[in-house]
């Protein structure tokens, strides 16, 4: 079973975005629309590719964690995509504002990455 979401960079500022359930692109991976069945995955990709105002859309694999009482949180499978989703690991200040729930924004992001979140 693979769960996939569609990602791209926004044309206007290059920021990493994810295609959401409402058809809008969001900066936050947690908002991403998750496709599981092959035809849903194909549809997700073709929708992403047809979207204007984003650059280079593609699919990535994710896992979904639901820490107790914290709602859904989406975690890209590869470390590269995690860095894309959460922001550079070296300047905590530049990490995405709404980081995944199991990810304390006040932590030194690089330390968290080193422990393999």
């Amino acid at each position: 079973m693979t769960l996939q979401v569609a990602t791209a960079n926004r044309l206007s500022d290059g920021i990493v975005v994810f295609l959401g359930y409402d058809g809008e692109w969001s900066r936050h991976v947690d908002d991403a629309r998750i496709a599981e069945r092959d035809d849903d995955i194909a549809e997700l990709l073709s929708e992403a590719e047809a979207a204007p105002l984003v650059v280079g859309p593609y699919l990535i694999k994710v896992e979904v964690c639901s820490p107790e009482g914290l709602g859904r949180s989406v975690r890209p499978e590869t470390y590269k995509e995690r860095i894309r989703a959460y922001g550079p690991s070296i300047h905590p200040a530049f990490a995405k504002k709404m980081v995944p729930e199991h990810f304390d924004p006040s932590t030194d992001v690089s330390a968290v990455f080193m422990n393999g979140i």
Partner: protein
Amino acid sequence: MYVYDKFDNSLVSDRVEQFREQVGRRLSGELTEDEFKPIRLMNGLYLQLHAYMLRVAIPYGLLSSPQMRKLAEVARTYDRGYAHFTTRQNIQFNWPRLEDTPDILEELSSVEMHAIQTSGNCIRNITADQFAGVDAEELDDSRVWAELIRQWSSLHPEFTFLPRKFKIAVTGSPHDRTAVKFHDIGLILKHDEDGNLGFEVLVGGGLGRTPMIGRTVREFLPQQYLLSYLEAILRVYNQLGRRDNKYKARIKILVHETGIDALREMVEEEWSHVKEEGVDLPFAEVDRVRSHFTDPTYDVLPDHDHSFAVKQFEDPMFGRWVRANLAPHKMPGYVIANVSLKPIGGAPGDVTAAQMEAVADLADKYSLGEIRVAHEQNLVLADVKMSDAYSLWKKLDEVQLGTPNLGLISDIIACPGLDYCALANARSIPVAQRLQRRFADFSRQFDIGELTLNISGCINACGHHHAGHIGILGVDRRGEEYYQLTLGGSADENASIGKIVGPAFSNAEIVDAVETVIDTYLSIRANGEAFIDTYRRTGEEPFKIALFGEKQNVAA
């Protein structure tokens, strides 16, 4: 430094207007990304991991204080308050918005700066010696030639779509600071037996996937033929360089596959025609450019300064800074000050807008208003009076720019790596930071002595890992960040390519591995022997044994 005339200015401002119109066509949807990409790349605009990245050219690494202030202003207004100096003496902004880039380029053009040819398969920014003009040993000022090559290569109609990017370096000093042997063309200024000025011309050096040291294609090229000779080399390369495989497209592969002697024959044959075709400049133009690089009026100063000597005893940190960061100047009473952009735990080459402004002010106050950028991702204030050195250092230190570590283990070269770069396999900066923290103690750093430690996040080698005494290369192993260690590289006049030792280390192991290498060196070095000399004497064996144990003989 070189000052634009009306022609230079109109070329750059025409280019800004052209790009503004092109960005407009992209934002309106008239241009697709496929059509727009080559255009934005030709203007230095990449799309990186998190955002666009704008690379601005700093021709041969030379900046005036107003230019530095403008870069600070751009960082603050259009970016997130910081920027990154690269290993090619350029500067990168990590978060510009596409729609702002024409404005950024317009701002830059007001101080005679641009982003032309900072990307794409064309002739890139020319590298020159950061000590040019102030080094006592220098034969001639490499900036003069770098500027002439800059002009000749700008928007060159024939060489804008080469098989691959093309990098040229010029050095005028017997001690090479430009990594001249790792450039597609390396130009070493020299005199012939009759005392005429010219160049030794090297071709086919480079790092990347297949690192190679440049070979001599011509022992002596009289100075007046520089451009025709470059044109001959570029034309041979443009026609014969491989275009079927991007990893085999650099001129080093052509040199390797054709052989230097056969290539030399082709170049010389081509040159025998080109030199008659009016490409070379009249002496008047060379003189005009040279007149921009004449010596400033230096004060007549004594060789020594009492307070300078005393302060080194009184303030040991300053003493360290003098030892590591200052270099001799050709004029008595002056020194060259290297400003380290490698504070312990910082991101190598990163500077904040406030730091850029501080450096600009200090350059005005203490160094004739000029700043140079070194390919080691540091800055240079080239004309500092010995008597001012202490005040300068104090003020640098206030803005975290006074680290006394030039040429020491914490003066790490690191590319942006996976924290920014879309091509990366692994992160570079966090590894550099952890290494700096591990070796933070300055007495230990001085004990280890002269050492270059270079980190690249992938095989493209922007962090020059093969050219470091110790090199670290990020690789991806089954979805994990791993790091390959290389030993014995060197970027100076005795250039060598680092050799891979053993299998790669995990993110958790790499810092310990470097420490093992260092401890091994300390235990086997002869008196006063630098790391690279020990390595060259003993070879990799003692290091391999220390890293992997006696019996281990694992292929890399």
